[in-house]
């Protein structure tokens, strides 16, 4: 009996097959190269969709799970704002608020939440079976010879425009005639984006992906797509990179991949709290912290909604309960509108908005917050401040509008490296212009 037991087990030999279900969108593959995967809330009809809910499942490890709440709220806000930075969305060690030896939960969560909305890795990643550094090559599927042909090319960088890829089939959407993952396209649809290699600029051999080394060579320092696979201790990546936003927004052009028509959609993520073993209807993205993974995974079910369009049906995120996570309590920066004057202003009068961004209480990061602050007046006006990162810095920019009334000014610090995005609002009054009559009366 015992011998049977052992021999049976010994015979259970296997080799893990190459996984073909991943692409720049989760379910794209050899038989569906141009397939786009949409979030659960999209069924083919455009418009402002029902919010996509996310919760923390406290049926397992509740004491640990509740610590994740601040990170979940931050990540929800990050996806809802859908803003990206051109560079410096990565930071390491003392340039972050992450204590030594810890792994940033929010950065990992952001990556897994991207998967659970339909995004795959822009790079080969571990599912390809390719070892480092080759797995940084651009996401593709094997061609007729059934093997990946990943050669870095002259620049020695895997994932760049000169990779030699044999008959591999590209799965990564890139900007037509630019093939630069550090840029944003003018529109987010197939007029500007393409998956096939037919719109590469002259001399380019394959689609480039937003790998940190590739982007550095293109002039974008400390930058990488959040969806690029790979995490490290004491590394912060809580800000979306252009390629992340481009891929999300291409999906939101709807099933026809054309921006500006009826099947375009938008949706917001909504944190619905701590729930006990929720159904996927009650909680579309379930976050658990348990031993079902050695680090972090997202498992998704999906179903076709039309040709080359799939929607996620179930999405579960799991994070390892033994990992030395750093749980962010909230954004580590505080944006403040110091003044907006003159307030009230008159229609058409220029007024100045002064903004300061500081580290949150108890936060210690080398240097001072720097980067871009966008100021909007809620009626179509906007201006931009660039913070240089000097001590006590207050930046300013000017707005003016002809719209009379009380407006909501929003200053949105986009974040930089280890400094999180933060947002503040205040009101500003644009009053009717005073008209002085000849008799001295208004």
């Amino acid at each position, binding site marked *: 009996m*015992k*011998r049977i*037991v*052992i021999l*049976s*087990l*010994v015979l*259970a*030999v*296997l080799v*893990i*097959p190459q*996984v073909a*279900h*991943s692409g720049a969108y*989760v*379910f794209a593959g050899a038989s569906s190269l141009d397939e786009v995967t949409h979030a659960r809330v999209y069924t083919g009809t455009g418009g402002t969709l029902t919010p996509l809910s996310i919760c923390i499942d406290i049926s397992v490890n509740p004491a640990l799970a509740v610590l994740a709440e601040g990170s979940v709220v931050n990540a929800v806000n990050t996806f809802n704002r859908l803003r990206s930075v051109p560079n410096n969305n*990565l930071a*390491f*060690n003392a340039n972050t608020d992450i204590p*030594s*030896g810890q*792994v940033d939960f929010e950065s990992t969560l952001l*990556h*897994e939440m991207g*998967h659970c909305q339909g995004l*795959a*890795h822009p790079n080969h*990643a*571990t599912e390809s079976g390719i070892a*480092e*550094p080759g797995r940084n090559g651009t996401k593709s599927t094997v061609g007729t010879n059934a093997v990946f042909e990943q050669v870095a090319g002259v620049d020695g960088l895997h994932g760049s425009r000169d990779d030699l890829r044999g008959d591999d089939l590209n799965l990564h959407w890139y900007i037509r005639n630019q093939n630069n993952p550090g840029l944003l396209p003018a529109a987010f649809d197939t007029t500007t984006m393409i998956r096939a290699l037919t719109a590469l600029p002259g001399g380019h051999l394959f689609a480039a992906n937003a790998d*940190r*080394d590739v982007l550095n060579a293109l002039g974008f320092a400390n930058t990488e797509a959040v969806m690029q*696979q*790979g*995490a*490290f*201790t*004491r*590394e912060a990546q809580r800000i979306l990179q252009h390629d992340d936003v481009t891929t999300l927004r291409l999906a939101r052009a709807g099933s026809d991949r054309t921006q500006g028509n009826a099947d375009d959609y938008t949706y917001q993520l909504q944190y619905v709290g701590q729930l006990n073993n929720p159904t996927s209807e009650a909680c579309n993205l379930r976050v658990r912290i348990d*031993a*079902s*993974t*050695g*680090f*972090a*995974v*997202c*498992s*998704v*079910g*999906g*179903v076709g909604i039309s040709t080359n369009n*799939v929607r996620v*049906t179930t999405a579960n995120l*799991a994070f*390892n309960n*033994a990992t*030395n996570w750093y749980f962010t309590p909230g954004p580590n920066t505080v944006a403040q509108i110091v003044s907006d004057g003159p307030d009230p202003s008159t229609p058409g009068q220029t007024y100045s908005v002064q903004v300061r961004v500081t580290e949150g209480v108890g936060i210690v990061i080398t240097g001072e917050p720097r980067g871009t602050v966008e100021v909007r007046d809620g009626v179509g006006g906007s201006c931009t401040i660039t913070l240089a990162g000097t001590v006590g810095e207050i930046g300013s920019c000017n707005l003016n509008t002809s719209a009379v009334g009380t407006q909501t000014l929003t200053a949105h610090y986009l974040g930089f490296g280890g400094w999180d995005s933060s947002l503040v609002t205040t009101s500003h009054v644009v009053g009717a212009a005073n008209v002085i009559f000849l008799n001295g009366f208004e």
Partner: protein
Amino acid sequence: MPIRCPTSNRAIDARPRRATVAPLFALLLSASVAAAEPTPCWPQGVPVMELRVTPGEMAAPGKELRINVHDNDCVSIKMPDYYRRRGEYALALSGSERAELQSLLRDLAAQPYDHQLMLAEASRLEGARAVDQGHERFAVLDADHYVLTLRDGDRFAPSVRALAVFQYAERYPEIRSLDALQRLTARLISLSERDELSLLQQPSAAAEVSR
């Protein structure tokens, strides 16, 4: 000075064994002994069973969780540098734990796991479930890679390899081989979560260098 397993006071299965079988799982396949409190131990000899878990998102040398069950009932557990309890630890199996592992191993042997066959069965199940919405697909991103290796002295038994065991098991509880692998894997991993692990080797500092 490490503390050794109290092997001498352990009840040994007196039933006859086949010579080819005895070296492999000599202890795991013996009869259960009286339940005892877990005792610190020092792993001796080659492991008779090893589980390695390599995460997709944190895939690099030294980043895997490794759990070795030795033939003196001592379990050594190597936790990667990003765990709260990084380093190498040991734990003595109690008699009841040994018996439980033995039972789980038998279950898996009765339902040998093959990842490709599991995927085929999963696809068949999705087809059977499809009613209104059509055939669903399933994917696990950043899937963990599990390798379960059994050894017989110097002879390596072929390894059982699997991806995302727990995620597939949640989706396809009907697949018995997957369920058996999941239960054995879960039990082994649960050993690493015990409070009374004894430290064998000081942890190395977590690498804080990005590629």
